[in-house]
């Protein structure tokens, strides 16, 4: 057990942070969101730097991929990082043509990146299927939740290559790990901008962040976020066993509800504006909280994996 990054991990994180500082950030996310666009340039920069393959490269693996996914979320990258860099390689055995979107069979609701994805990983019971999506397959859907969304017609969800027995469980588990990593990245950013805001904003002659009523709720948020972060990392390191993956997703989804409520509460009306950056990450928390059945389903998955396997 070692909670500090190794030298290799430090190098990976430094290089991805440097890349994100140039190519991502909340301002760019706001700009792209206004047009409903996907960040093709960031995707290309990440691929050129070798990050697309990080989960299966020498000297790195799914844990390093999860760390990078968290960083990208924290930098508000408008790319399908979790699905492309973590889920696809771990479920299909290699990176798939990106952007990659994730969906559940029989669920016709809009999904993240649904109008931009070239590959769809479909969770269909115990099996996962990979489908090529010809351009124009997904219908763009305007969304207020921070990601370009799209609806894919049910007819387009037939066929595709089965990824074999057990691939459904694998997809669900890695999807949960990726969700947890993205939630954690977004939550860290929400907390950081809120801490900055309440440290500067003065009312009653003092910074509002000096009130204990504010401090305690942010401290509790920090405890929940820290715990979620380590759970996501451990789940990735363990190779996404069902219980650990669901545990990370359950804890991060529950934390996200608290972080959303409290960071918006403490940033007041300013936090609701497009002028302030909070919404870039906070609205995404809600989108992420919806996936794979949400917090209730993650929690049931924890219990089923631990206490009633195979039931």
């Amino acid at each position, binding site marked *: *057990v*070692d*909670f*500090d*990054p*190794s030298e290799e*991990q430090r190098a990976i994180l430094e290089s991805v942070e440097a890349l994100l500082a140039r190519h991502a950030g909340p301002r760019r996310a706001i700009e792209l969101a206004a047009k409903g666009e996907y960040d093709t340039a960031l995707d290309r920069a990440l691929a050129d730097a070798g990050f697309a393959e990080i989960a299966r490269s020498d000297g790195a693996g799914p*844990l390093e991929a999860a*760390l990078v996914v968290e960083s990208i979320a924290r930098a508000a990258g408008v790319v399908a990082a979790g699905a492309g860099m973590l889920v696809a390689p771990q479920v299909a055995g290699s990176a798939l043509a990106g952007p990659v979107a994730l969906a559940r069979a029989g669920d016709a609701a809009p999904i993240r990146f649904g109008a931009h994805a070239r590959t769809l990983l479909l969770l269909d019971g115990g099996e996962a299927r990979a489908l090529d999506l010809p351009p124009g397959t997904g219908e763009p859907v305007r969304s207020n939740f921070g990601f370009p969304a799209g609806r894919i017609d049910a007819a387009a969800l037939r066929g595709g290559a089965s990824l074999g027995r057990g691939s459904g469980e694998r997809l669900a588990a890695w999807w949960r790990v990726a969700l947890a990593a993205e939630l954690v990245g977004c939550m860290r950013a929400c*907390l950081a901008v809120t*801490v900055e805001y*309440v*440290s500067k904003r003065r009312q009653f002659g*003092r*910074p509002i*962040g*000096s*009130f*204990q009523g*504010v*401090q*305690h709720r*942010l*401290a*509790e948020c*920090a*405890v*929940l976020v*820290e*715990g*979620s972060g*380590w*759970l996501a*990392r*451990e789940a990735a*390191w*363990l190779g996404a066993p069902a219980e650990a993956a*669901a*545990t990370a997703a*359950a*804890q991060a989804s*529950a934390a996200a509800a608290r972080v959303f409520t409290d960071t918006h509460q403490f940033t007041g009306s300013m936090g609701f504006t497009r002028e302030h950056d909070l919404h870039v990450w906070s609205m995404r928390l809600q989108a992420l909280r919806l996936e794979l059945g949400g917090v*209730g389903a*993650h*929690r*049931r*998955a*924890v*219990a*089923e994996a*631990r*206490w*009633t396997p195979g039931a």
Partner: protein
Amino acid sequence: VEFGWSPDDLAFRRELVAFLAEALPPDWEEISKGGPGSDAQVAFSRGFCARLAERGWLTQHWPSAWGGRDASSWRHAILGEELWSRGEPRGPQYMNVNWIGPTILRFGTDEQRRRHLPRISAGNVLWCQGFSEPEAGSDLVALRTLAVREGDHYLVNGSKIWTSYVNHAEFCFLLCRSDPESSRHRGLSVLLVPMSLPGIEVREIPSVVGERYFHEVFFTEVAAPADCLLGEEGQGWEIASWALQYERVGAARYARAARMLDVLVEEARRRGRLSDPMLLEKLGEARATCEAARLLTYRVIDQREKALPPTADANVARIAGTLAERAVADLALEVSGGEALAYGSVAESHFRMAMTAGVAIGATEIQMNLVAGRLLGLPRE
């Protein structure tokens, strides 16, 4: 970042689990239901700790020169997890090995080390901690118990409260004010006081937490020999802070909560409730809370193993442990229903121990103040 255990650590855990299966008697549940301060559990702990000591496990994380084996903090954490999850058969002695011994090792004279450490590492001495006072709880530095140097002794006057294990204790780790003119953090000292000295009176405070859980201790003109002083006069706050840092993650409460959850699930299974999706959801929620506390505690152990200076991560871990215990305690009552009304039932025993989580070793609100200030960097009032 990685989360693997060494083969040696894994082997140790297996050996320990096998030992515990044999060392804990069939009526252990009955023995332990009164809590770690109960007469039955204290009596049991004496023989049990001696057996751990014989195997070299009780204080293996101490240096070999002082009754240890130079083992890692991880090894001691494994011991703590397995013992706490079984209701802590070390009884009050977990305190001795977690922080009283290490604090004496760090701040004590060789003479004090020779006097105390061999007995602690042999598992045959009981200690209590004298921190809280009637007017000094969360605001610990408001404490008023006086210890004034007079010739070859300190004259101690005052009282301590909420003290556990004191009826059996042979020594008290006493935080007191050695400079009567001082205030707050300054002028505090730690005395290692033999409880047999004349002038010490103990009164039990009956509580719903467990047998002999709380006491008030009165010191009236107690003459404590000057060589009871730990460290320097006036160094008390530094020593207490160092000790508390250890204590905050010393008790593996998350491990007990996680084990309790497994027990509850078996009860729910017997009653045919395990197909209830609402119950599964709550169980999953509680389990995730325990797991988060486990990793946040491991993080502090990692820092300790690397001998890094203490950070707010210890407070984070303590808050997470409290959340885990509460989540499981609430669920315990819900799963057990009316059976929980019986004193000593599984759910009731856990609930009783868990209800102190947010208060023991510093109220949650104090931990949150520290997280807000040190981790988040929020401004002071």
